[in-house]
C-alpha cells in the first residue's frame, strides 16, 4: 500500500510536533523552540516551517486555536499526538537496536 506524504515524518516535522506537544505556539515560537531544544542543530526555515504547518493542518494533525492579527497559534490534535508518539517510539527502537549492536561488538 503506497505511503501517504506524512506517513514518514522528516526530522523537521518531528520537531514541530514535539514543540506543539508541549504547548500551543505560533510559527516563530516553534522555530525558536526547536533551535533551542536542538542547540542549533536543527533550524527551521520559514518555507519549511509553514509548509509543515500547512500540511499538518490539512491532515488535521494540528489546528489553529487563535488568530491575533497575522499571528496564528496552533495546537496539536489527537492524530498529531499519535503520529508524534509513533515516530518517537520508532526512533527509540532504532537507538535501542543500535546500542545493543554496539555492546555486542
Amino acid at each position, binding site marked *: 500500500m503506497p505511503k501517504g506524504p506524512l506517513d514518514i515524518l522528516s526530522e523537521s516535522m518531528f520537531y514541530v510536533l514535539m514543540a506543539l506537544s508541549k504547548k500551543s505556539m505560533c510559527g516563530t515560537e516553534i*522555530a525558536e523552540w526547536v533551535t533551542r531544544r536542538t542547540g542549533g542543530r536543527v533550524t527551521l526555515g520559514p*518555507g519549511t516551517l509553514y509548509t509543515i504547518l500547512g500540511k499538518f493542518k490539512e491532515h488535521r494533525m494540528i489546528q489553529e486555536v487563535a488568530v491575533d492579527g497575522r499571528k496564528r497559534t496552533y495546537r496539536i490534535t489527537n492524530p498529531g499526538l499519535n503520529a508524534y508518539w509513533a515516530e518517537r517510539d520508532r526512533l527509540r527502537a532504532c537507538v535501542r537496536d543500535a546500542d545493543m549492536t554496539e555492546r555486542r561488538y
Partner: protein
Amino acid sequence: MEKKYMLPPCPEFNLQANQTWLDDMAKQGWLLTDDSFFLGVAVFEPSAPSHMRYRLEAAQTHASLFNGSDRPEEALIQANREFGWEYVTRRGQFYIYRCADPAAVELHTDPQVQALSVDALTKRIRSELIWSICHVLLLLWLHAGFSFALFCALLGTPLMVSGLALLIWSFCDRLCRIHRLSSLRSQLRENRRATQRSDWRSGARCHRAAAVAGIVLPVVWIFAVLFQFPSKLPLAQMEQQLPLTASQIVPDAEIDEGFLDSTVTLYEDILFPESYELREYFRFPEGSGSMYIHYHRTAAPFLARRLVYEYEHYFDREPFEKDERIPIELGELDADLALCYRGDYLDELYLVRGTKAVYIRWQFHQDAALTAREVALAALEALD
C-alpha cells in the same frame, strides 16, 4: 530610474538556474521588481551591487491573477519577513523571495518538506496535461475525425496552423515542466537542497526562443480569429459571377424567392484562394429544387483530393438523414475523382478536377429531373 527588461534565460521550473541568475543580477546591481513577469518579461531596477539570496517557492494552490492567489497570503509574507525573507513577485507557479542578510536562515531547510510542496504542483500540471489530452480527443471524436484541410478552408489556414502549433507548444511545455519537476522532486527526496549554483547561461537561447514562440503564437492565433470572418450574402445580391451555381447545372433554373433565401458564404484563405458555400432554391420549367454547392479552388491538386475525402468522411449531413448512402454509378467522366451517393432526401456528388474540389447535394421536387450523371457532366462543364 532606468529599468532593465529581460526575457528569463531559464524556465521557471529550473529553481537552481533561476536563483543563480537572480543572485548574479543582484551582484551586478540589478534587483528584480515587484511587477516582473507580467507578460513573461523580468524587470530589474538599478541598485548597489549586493549579495542577495533569491529563492523560489512553489505555490500550494493554482497561482493566478483571477483567483486572488497571485501572491501568497499576507500572513505568510509577514511571517517570512520576520525571518529576513522579503516577498518580491510571482513567476508562473512560483513565489520569489529574497534575503539580503547572509546570516538569515535559509528559506527551505528541509529538502524533503520542500519536495511535498513540489508534489502538489506536479499533480496540478499532470492533471492539466491529462485534461488537455481529453479535450483534444473529445474534439476529434465530436468531429468524427480529423478534417484539418476542411477546417483550413472554412476557418483559415493561419488560424488552424497557429492553433495547432500552439497546442503542440502547450503539450511540449507541460511535458518539460513535468520532467523538470520530477527531477527536482527526486533531488529533494534524496535530501539534496535546491540551493546550489547552476549555469543558467547554457540553454538560455533555446529557452528564450521557446518563450518567444509562447508569446507570438497566441497573438497570431488571436489575429487570425479576428480577421477570419466569412461573408454571407443573399445570392441575388452577388455581383461577381460564381464558377458553379445551380443555374449552370439545371437548364433554365432561376432563383426561387420563396420563403427560403438563397445565400452564398464566401471564404478566403492562402491555401484555398477561392471557396464558397452556396445554398440555392430554384425553379425551372419542369419544377423546383434545392442545391447546396461547396466549391473550393485549392493551391495544389492534392489539397483538392484531401478536401473531397474529408467531405465524404467527416462532413455533417442533415440531422434527419440516415447514415446509409447508396453509391450511384456515374460511368466514365473527365474528372480526377467522381463519386455519387443517393441519400434519403438528398443526392451527393463529389468531384475533383485539378485544383478544384466540389461537393454538391441536391434535391428535385419532381420526378422529371436530371440524373446524377447529368448533374456531374453539367458541373464538370461549368468547371472548365
